C-alpha cells in the first residue's frame, strides 16, 4: 500500500471523526474521551498492511482507499417487508439498526423478563452509563487491533444486553444490522455489549445484511461479551451482506469461572471478510466452543482470525471452522491458542476443514500454539480436500446422479457445522440460506 493511500484513508475517517465530535455534545461524559483515545490509537497505527504478520494474507487496501460516507448521515426507509428474509422466528426479541441507527418501528422488543435489559446502546448510554463505562473497551479490545480501535472511536448504535444473576432468557435476542444506501460507499461501525450476569443464560443472534442494490460499503462491527461465573451464552453471527461490501468484525469474549460460551460465525457475503474472534478464559473451568462456516465464490476472501487465551487452569476450548471454496475464492484460518504458565489441565482442540471445489480456489490454514504450561492437552488439525470419491460412489449407487450427489456432499460438509446451532428455527433458516448459496443448491430442495 502506498503512503499516499494510507494518508488519504485516514483522512476520510479523520473527517468522519471530526463530524462525530461536533455532534456528540450532550452525550455521556466518559464516551468522548474513550472515542478520542481510540481514534488516536487508530491514527497512530493506521490500516494494517500485509507486512504485518496478523494481516499477511488479507490485504485491506480496498477499504483503505475508498472514500466512504458515514452511513448514519444517509437517509433510509426500510419497510417491514424488506427485512422479512432476514428473520427466522417471530418468537424473539428483535432490534433493527439501519445505517448504524436504531430503528424503533422495525424493532419488536416486547415485554422482557425481569432482570433483562435489552435495548439499543444509545438508549443504554443515557440510563446505564456506569455499567457501560465499566465494561466497554476494557477488555484489551481496542489495544488489539486498528479496526477495533476505529470502531470504538466511531461506534454507531447496536445492542446493549444485560442479564441479572440467575436469569435465563428463553427467547433469542436477534439484532439485525442493515445498510440501505445507493451505490455511493458508506461505512458503519455497529457496536454491541453483552453482559451475562452470574448463572444467567442467553442466546444472541447478530445478522448483517444489505437492503436494496448495495455498493462497496464497509461494515466494521465489534461485539464484547462478558460471561460472568457460570453464565451460559450462545452467540450467532450471520453475515450475508451483498457481494461487493467489505466486512471486518471483532468479537471479544471475557469468560469467568465455569462460564460457557458458544459462538457460531457464518460468512456468506461480501467481497472481503475478516472476523477477529478472541476469547479469554479467565476463570477456572471456563469452556468455549467457537464454530464457523464460510462459503466463498467469485473472488471473495474470508479470513477467520481466532485467539483463545487459556489464562486459568481446567478450561476447555473447541474451535471448529469449515469452509467451502469455489471459483477463485480464498479462505484464511489462523487459530492461535495461548496457554498461560498457570493454566494447567487445559484442554484445547482446534479443527479447520476446507472443501475446494475449484483448482483456482485457495486456502491458508495456520495453527499457532503457544504453550507455557506443562500439563495440557492441545490438538489441532487441518484438512483441505475435494469431494470424497467413495462417498460420491455410494450416493450414485443409490440412483442419485453425479452432479446432485456432489451437491449433496458439499451441502452435507457445510451443514455439519449447523448441528451446533441450538435454536431450531435459526438452524432451518441458515440451512436454507446455505442451499441458496451452494452451486445448484435448488436441486436439493427441502
Amino acid at each position, binding site marked *: 500500500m502506498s503512503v499516499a493511500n494510507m494518508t488519504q484513508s485516514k483522512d476520510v475517517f479523520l473527517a468522519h471523526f471530526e463530524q462525530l465530535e461536533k455532534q456528540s455534545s450532550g452525550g455521556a461524559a466518559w464516551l468522548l474521551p474513550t472515542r478520542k483515545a481510540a481514534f488516536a490509537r487508530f491514527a497512530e497505527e493506521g490500516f494494517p498492511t500485509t507486512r504485518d504478520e496478523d494481516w499477511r494474507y488479507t490485504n485491506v487496501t480496498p477499504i483503505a482507499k475508498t472514500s466512504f460516507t458515514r452511513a448514519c448521515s444517509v437517509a433510509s426507509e426500510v419497510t417491514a417487508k424488506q427485512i422479512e428474509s432476514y428473520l427466522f422466528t417471530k418468537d424473539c426479541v428483535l432490534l433493527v439498526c439501519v445505517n448504524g441507527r436504531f430503528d424503533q418501528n422495525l424493532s419488536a422488543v416486547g415485554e422482557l423478563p425481569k432482570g433483562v435489559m435489552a435495548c439499543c446502546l444509545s438508549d443504554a448510554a443515557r440510563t446505564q452509563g456506569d455499567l457501560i463505562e465499566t465494561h466497554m473497551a476494557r477488555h484489551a479490545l481496542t489495544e488489539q487491533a486498528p479496526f477495533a480501535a476505529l470502531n470504538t472511536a466511531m461506534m454507531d448504535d447496536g445492542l446493549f444486553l444485560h442479564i441479572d444473576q440467575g436469569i435465563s432468557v428463553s427467547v433469542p435476542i436477534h439484532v439485525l444490522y442493515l445498510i440501505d444506501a445507493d451505490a455511493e460507499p458508506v461505512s458503519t461501525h455497529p457496536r454491541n455489549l453483552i453482559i451475562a450476569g452470574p448463572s444467567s443464560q442467553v442466546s444472541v443472534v447478530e445478522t448483517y445484511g444489505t437492503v436494496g442494490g448495495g455498493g462497496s460499503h464497509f461494515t466494521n462491527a465489534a461485539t464484547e461479551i462478558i460471561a460472568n461465573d457460570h453464565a451460559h451464552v450462545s452467540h450467532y453471527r450471520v453475515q450475508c451482506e451483498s457481494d461487493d461490501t467489505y466486512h471486518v468484525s471483532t468479537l471479544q469474549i471475557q469468560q469467568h469461572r465455569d462460564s460457557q460460551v458458544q459462538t457460531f460465525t457464518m460468512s456468506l457475503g461480501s467481497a472481503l471478510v475478516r472476523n477477529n474472534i478472541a476469547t479469554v478464559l479467565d476463570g477456572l473451568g471456563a469452556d468455549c466452543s467457537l464454530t464457523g462456516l464460510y462459503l466463498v465464490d467469485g473472488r471473495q476472501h474470508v479470513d477467520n482470525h481466532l485467539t483463545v487465551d487459556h489464562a486459568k487452569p481446567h478450561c476447555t476450548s473447541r474451535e471448529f471452522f469449515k469452509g467451502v471454496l469455489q471459483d477463485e475464492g480464498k479462505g484464511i484460518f489462523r487459530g492461535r491458542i495461548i496457554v498461560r504458565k498457570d493454566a494447567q489441565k487445559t484442554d484445547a482442540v482446534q479443527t479447520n476443514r476446507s472443501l475446494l471445489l475449484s483448482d483456482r480456489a485457495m486456502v491458508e490454514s495456520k495453527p499457532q500454539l503457544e504453550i507455557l504450561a506443562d500439563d495440557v492437552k492441545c490438538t489441532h488439525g487441518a484438512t483441505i480436500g475435494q469431494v470424497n470419491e*467413495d462417498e460420491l460412489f455410494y*450416493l450414485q449407487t*443409490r*440412483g*442419485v446422479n453425479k452432479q446432485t450427489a456432489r451437491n449433496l*456432499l458439499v451441502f452435507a460438509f457445510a451443514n455439519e457445522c449447523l448441528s451446533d446451532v441450538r435454536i431450531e428455527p435459526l438452524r432451518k433458516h441458515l440451512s436454507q440460506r446455505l442451499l441458496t448459496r451452494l452451486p445448484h443448491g435448488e436441486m436439493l430442495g427441502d
Partner: protein
Amino acid sequence: MLEIRNLHAHIDGHEILKGINLTVGAGEVHSIMGPNGSGKSTLAQVLAGRDTYEVTQGDILYKGKSILALSPDERACEGMFLAFQYPVEIPGVTTSYFLRAAVNAIRKHRGDEELDAMDFLKIVKEKAKLIKLDQQLLSRAINEGFSGGEKKRNEIFQMAVLEPYLAILDETDSGLDIDALKIVAEGVNALRSQDRAMIIVTHYQRLLHYIVPDFVHVLVDGKIAHSGGKELALELEAKGYTWIADDADKATAVAS
C-alpha cells in the same frame, strides 16, 4: 437378468478380474465365495459401475443390454443395487433425506410420479419394521456413529426401500455377530422374489446357513474356479479353499 461374459478388469495397471463368466436368472440367488484377494469385492464394484476399475475385455449384460457405458446412478435407476462391505459415513445428510432423493431419482427415471414426504414416510415405516431397524437412526446422518450391525442393516433397509431387480450384497455378513447376522438374513430372505435376483459375495459359509443360495461359485485369482449348488458351500466349510485353488493351478498348468 445378468450375464457376465469373459470380464477382465484392471486397477492401476493390475489385472484383478481375469475372465469371469456368470449367468444369473430372475428369482435366483447366487453366492460368490473365495479366499481374500480373489477379486470378489472388485467384481461387486465393477458390476455397480465404479470407475476406478477399468474393464479391458468382455461385457456385462443386464436385462439383455450391455451396461458398461452406464454410470453407477444409471445402473441404480435401471434396478441394480450394491450393499457395501464398508458403508460410507456421511455427516451432514440424514438417511431419510438422502433416501428420498434416491427413491425419487429412480422413480423419475422410470417415469413414475415423485413421492411426497408423507408417502415416503409410509414406505420407510413399513420397511424399517421389516428390517427391524430403529427408525431413530433414519433421522441421523448417514451411518454416522452407527454400529457395524446398524450399518449393514441400513444397507438392507435401503435395498428394501429401493426394491431393485438385481441386488449385489458385498460381504454383508462380515463383522456381524450371530444375532445381527440373523436379522440381516431375515431381511434379505423377505426380499427374495421371483423377479428379483441376488448375488451374495461372502468369505464365510456362515451366512449361507441363513440365506440359502441356489448356486455357489468360487472365485480364485480373478476367475470362477468352481461352481455348484448350495452343497458346495458346505464342502468349502469342511475343506477350506485350498483344494480348489490347487485344482485351478493344476488346470492352468495343464492348459499351458
